[in-house]
């Protein structure tokens, strides 16, 4: 039994690992692939947009510098000093520094927002250049360009524009991208997880159906086989039984007891075979309306005849008079099996049967004060041929479950070692 349980556990673990792998392979890997493609494509797209935006801004700033040169040229003609000219641009937020140089590239005057900061190297500079530098306050677009005053004198203008707005725009674009990327990732994970759950549910159901089908086929085969054997055994048993009956009439008085015992033993073997056959055959229900209380009473009577019930009381109570639409014979057998188990497990006390109706269902609860069922056996008690009793065949509870399920009902058990057992039965109708 232990070995069977271990194998079941191993199989469950193996299936869980397989499910995990399938999950990764069929759901998240393609999604991850899509995300990577999206990320690469978006990054390239953003880089292109950034480049084109920078080019546009550069063109724009060069155009603005062109306007400045015209205005400075005009101021120079009007004999304004360099200080006065640059003072005009002190309100311009985007100009970080500006310098005016003569034709020999000597600085005539300059102005900067930051103390002494004029990042111009005259050693390597050409006649017209533009470049971008990084600074702690962001990127700065530098433009160095010649121009002539209205009097024909040559000058150079050096100007540094803040690219803060452009950087803000790029930062905004990057934030938006990561936000969208994050949202898509989350939505994708949730969506694929949902899809996976659905698929897993479907596969579980499919597997359950397949297992059930296999189980049915297996029992059909066993049933056919054992029915054949039972039939073959029952014929000679019947003959033996008849023979013992004849013997009982003819043997002397002192042998009557022995013959009677022999006859009972044969009948016992016959009953066992009947039980086996019954447990393997599919049920054909002959439903009828009957009183649950009366049925339980019959079962109790039958038990009192068969077993010694000293010190044990069986009580029955119901919320109202309950009529059950079921196969009376089979139901009697189911209750007989349950109560027989309870009796065998209990030494003294009261076995309580309580029945009530709820939402079109009949609910029955059977409590016994017995020794209880060990936790490791709980899953197996409804299995065929599982028994903890020395004389038991392990058919009773299996048969009970089959009978209840044949009536589209359910049976459950709750137990704790040393603290009794409770069976819950739920049958539609009533």
């Amino acid at each position, binding site marked *: 039994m232990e070995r069977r349980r271990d194998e079941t556990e191993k199989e469950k673990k193996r299936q869980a690992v397989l499910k995990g792998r399938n999950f990764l392979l069929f759901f998240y890997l393609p999604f991850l692939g899509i995300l990577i493609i999206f990320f690469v494509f978006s990054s390239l797209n953003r880089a292109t947009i950034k480049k084109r*935006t920078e080019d546009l*801004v550069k063109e724009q700033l060069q155009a603005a510098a062109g306007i400045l040169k015209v205005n400075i040229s005009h101021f120079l003609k009007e004999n304004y000093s360099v200080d006065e000219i640059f003072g005009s641009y002190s309100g311009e937020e985007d100009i970080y520094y500006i310098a005016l140089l003569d034709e020999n590239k000597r600085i005539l005057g300059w102005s900067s927002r930051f103390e002494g900061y*004029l990042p111009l190297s005259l050693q390597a500079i050409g006649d017209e250049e533009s470049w971008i530098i990084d*600074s702690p306050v962001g990127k700065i677009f530098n433009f160095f360009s010649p121009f002539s005053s209205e009097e024909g004198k040559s000058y150079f203008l050096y100007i540094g524009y803040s690219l803060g707005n452009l950087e803000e*725009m790029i930062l905004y674009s990057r934030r938006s991208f990561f936000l969208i990327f994050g949202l898509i990732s989350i939505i994708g994970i949730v969506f694929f997880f949902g899809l996976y759950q659905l698929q897993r549910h479907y596969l579980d159901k499919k597997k359950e159906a397949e297992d059930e089908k296999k189980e049915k086929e297996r029992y059909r085969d066993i049933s056919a086989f054992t029915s054949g054997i039972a039939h073959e055994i029952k014929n000679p048993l019947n003959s033996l039984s008849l023979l013992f009956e004849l013997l009982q009439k003819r043997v002397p008085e002192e042998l009557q007891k022995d013959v009677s015992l022999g006859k009972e033993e044969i009948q016992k073997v016959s009953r066992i075979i009947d039980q086996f056959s019954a447990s393997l055959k599919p049920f054909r229900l002959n439903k009828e309306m009957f009183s649950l209380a009366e049925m339980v009473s019959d079962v109790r009577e039958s038990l009192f005849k068969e077993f010694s019930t000293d010190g044990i009381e069986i009580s029955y109570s119901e919320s109202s008079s309950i009529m059950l639409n079921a196969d009376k014979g089979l139901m009697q057998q189911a209750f007989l099996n349950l109560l027989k188990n309870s009796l065998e497990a209990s030494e003294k006390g009261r076995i309580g049967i309580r029945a009530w109706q709820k939402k079109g269902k009949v609910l029955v609860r059977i409590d016994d004060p017995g020794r209880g069922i060990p936790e490791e056996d709980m899953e197996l008690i409804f299995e065929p041929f599982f028994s903890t009793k020395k004389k038991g065949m392990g058919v009773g509870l299996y048969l009970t479950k089959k009978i209840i399920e044949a009536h589209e009902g359910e049976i459950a058990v709750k137990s704790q070692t040393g603290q009794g057992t409770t069976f819950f039965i739920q049958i539609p109708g009533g």
Partner: protein
Amino acid sequence: MEYVFWKEEVRKSFFIILFILAVFQGTVFSQKPDHFYNVDTEKKIRGTIQKIVMESRYKDASPFLIVVLEEKKTEEVYNVEISPVRFFAHDFHKGEELEVTGSLYFKEGEKNIIARQIRFRGEIIMLRDKKGFPAWRGGEMKQKKRRKGKRF
């Protein structure tokens, strides 16, 4: 791309409006021609502190710490512009040694250096970046560091 073109139009209008405003504003913010951090005239000197003074060096800026340094090899004297006084957390004393890397310029026959990096009592202190951008104006990160009590 529509967004970019929209930005371009706004930017164009923005420049024109600012230019017109600036022309009529007339506030002076320019400096003397030679007094800027010229990367082409960068020099390293090592000398002894002769004098420490505070001077106003830039318009609308707080006073600067100026160290008069005598170079060891040549015994030439340099006026070394360190940083705004409020920014500098160290104490200089006459006779102490100082190594300065900075941009050299001449003013009224005197040699002046705008310091970028100084080595003082075995510690290197960065005052400007390699292009001369002042550390005391250096973005959010440096300001945060300063709030925590560390100035460089």
